[in-house]
């Protein structure tokens, strides 16, 4: 039998490329040479993130996110970005609040789980400042990167069939030639840039991530430019001694930056907990446009780099406490929530 492809009413295809186009791109731009890719955050962001790029962030929700790089994008005023909000929260929402985002493909955004809805990103959509390009699900977004990682143009799933979420995605529904039942095909997604925060990396870009890896392996293999920020850049031997721990290999990585506490105010599992005090500062600020601007001027635009930011939020005193909380040597503080 022939497989019928049913064109959906609304088909929104973003970030997709022919697999051979990407093979050619990789042959030209990626290298198996073990080169020292360490650089400064400012240089890596300037080189990797361009106005109008499609960007995704590693980690999930507000855990193990490259916030130091988000801050640097804001400092460098790189705008008109399209963000793939694949279960994303504070990273993309802060960037949206700062006005650097003009478009988004959304699976989850506009909220911080139990902390409440994220007003700045919401109002940016409601006022038309940010255009939502498409809807999808967390699983579906991640399987779009899986398709990209596997060198396929699509990945099949049975999720979200019959929904508007599917109608407003770039997926297509076809008849599964084995079951003769409908199946959803998710288009591969090749972002221009993936920025991923990891526990440790060597100078070539081999990365170790402790705990849950969300979809970081997939986005690292899908993106055209991969910027890694690491809590620590470790000697080569640390990676060589136990290659089983390498989650992202060097040859997909384009730049490596050491960014201790690079996820603050978010968590990095086993290393440091959420900064609830700072979260409350942000949540309180986020209630008004003026508050957002004050916050950004104080903590992001008003600091020249990540290290000055770390001093601004309280320095060693605060960071040391966050480490104690994560290691269970200090009690969990009150959870910050949106007020007003």
């Amino acid at each position: 039998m022939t497989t019928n492809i049913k064109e959906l009413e609304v088909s929104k295809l973003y970030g997709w490329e022919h697999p051979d186009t990407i093979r050619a791109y990789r042959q030209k731009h990626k290298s198996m040479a073990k080169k020292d890719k360490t650089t400064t955050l400012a240089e890596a962001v300037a080189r990797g993130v361009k106005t109008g790029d499609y960007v995704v962030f590693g980690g999930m929700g507000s855990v193990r996110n490259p916030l130091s790089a988000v801050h640097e994008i804001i400092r460098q005023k790189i705008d008109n970005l399209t963000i793939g909000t694949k279960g994303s929260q504070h990273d993309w929402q802060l960037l949206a609040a700062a006005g650097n985002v003009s478009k988004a493909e959304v699976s989850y955004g506009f909220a911080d789980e139990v902390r409440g809805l994220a007003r700045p990103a919401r109002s940016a959509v409601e006022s038309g400042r940010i255009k939502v390009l498409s809807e999808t699900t967390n699983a579906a977004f991640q399987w779009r990167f899986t398709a990209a990682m596997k060198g396929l143009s699509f990945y099949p799933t049975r999720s979200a069939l019959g929904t508007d979420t599917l109608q407003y995605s770039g997926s297509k529904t076809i008849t599964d030639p084995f079951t003769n039942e409908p199946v959803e095909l998710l288009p591969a997604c090749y972002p221009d840039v993936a920025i991923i925060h990891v526990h440790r990396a060597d100078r070539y870009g081999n990365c170790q991530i402790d705990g849950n890896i969300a979809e970081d392996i997939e986005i690292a293999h899908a993106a055209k430019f991969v910027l890694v920020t690491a809590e620590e850049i470790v000697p080569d031997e640390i990676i060589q001694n136990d290659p089983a721990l390498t989650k992202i290999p060097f040859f997909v990585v384009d730049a490596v930056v050491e960014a201790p506490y690079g996820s603050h105010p978010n968590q990095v599992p086993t290393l440091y907990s959420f900064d609830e005090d700072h979260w409350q500062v942000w949540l309180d600020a986020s209630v008004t446009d003026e508050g957002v601007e004050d916050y950004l001027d104080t903590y992001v635009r008003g600091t020249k780099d990540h290290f000055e930011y770390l001093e601004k939020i309280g320095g060693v005193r605060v960071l040391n406490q966050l480490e104690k909380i994560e290691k269970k040597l200090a009690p969990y503080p009150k959870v910050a929530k949106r007020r007003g």
Partner: protein
Amino acid sequence: MATETEKMIIAASRELPKETAVFVGTGMPLLASVLALNTHSPNILLVYEGGGIGGNPTGRLPIQVSESLTYENGVAVGSMDYVMSLAQAGWIQYGFLGGAQIDAYGNLNTTVIGDWENPKVRLPGSGGGADIASLCERTIILMRQDRKKFVPKLDFLTSPGYLTGPGEREKVGLPANTGPYRVITQIGIYGFDEQTKQMTLLQLFEGYTLDDVQQQSGFPIAISADWSYVKAPTELELEALHALDPDGVVLA
């Protein structure tokens, strides 16, 4: 005296069997699941979107589906691909959902209020919601009930319930024998009629009437012939619940 939120969470926890796997989100679903774990369901496996499986967290409950507490003292930790694949392959029986709007067939909207192109209110989006609604065997929906939330037609169908009626889930290709199982609101506990796949009142919370069921819904709700009142929370349940959220992150 238990609050309405507490009654809803306790009712949700009672719906979980002794032994099962549950796809949980933070907030009320997590409280319901851990309450079940700590009371009548010692063999519940909690599965989180971030990749955490079977965690028994200490200190506080997770506030993020990807934080390390989701797998502390747990079974395994993997990727989103792994846990979503578990759901798609049929390993996860129960899942929790919420929403801004629901219709008679248990379809949910968590995407927009108003027009998608120019939304009046932008909501979080599907997240893992449509995945859980599509792939888990039984979903339990926790949300407050009023005429703005219980609507005849959703502004946006984010996550599939029974779509437009019997046989529709199968027809569009969703896994067999899946769908909404219970809807729990401050007014009552609803199931879905075998024949019509429409929402039907099974139990009413004390203090509410059958009139309230209809008054606070924009679509007609059938009343089960053998409807009853929800059993009041026990002291044990309330104590166990309060112990899970001493700071009132969710309960306050």
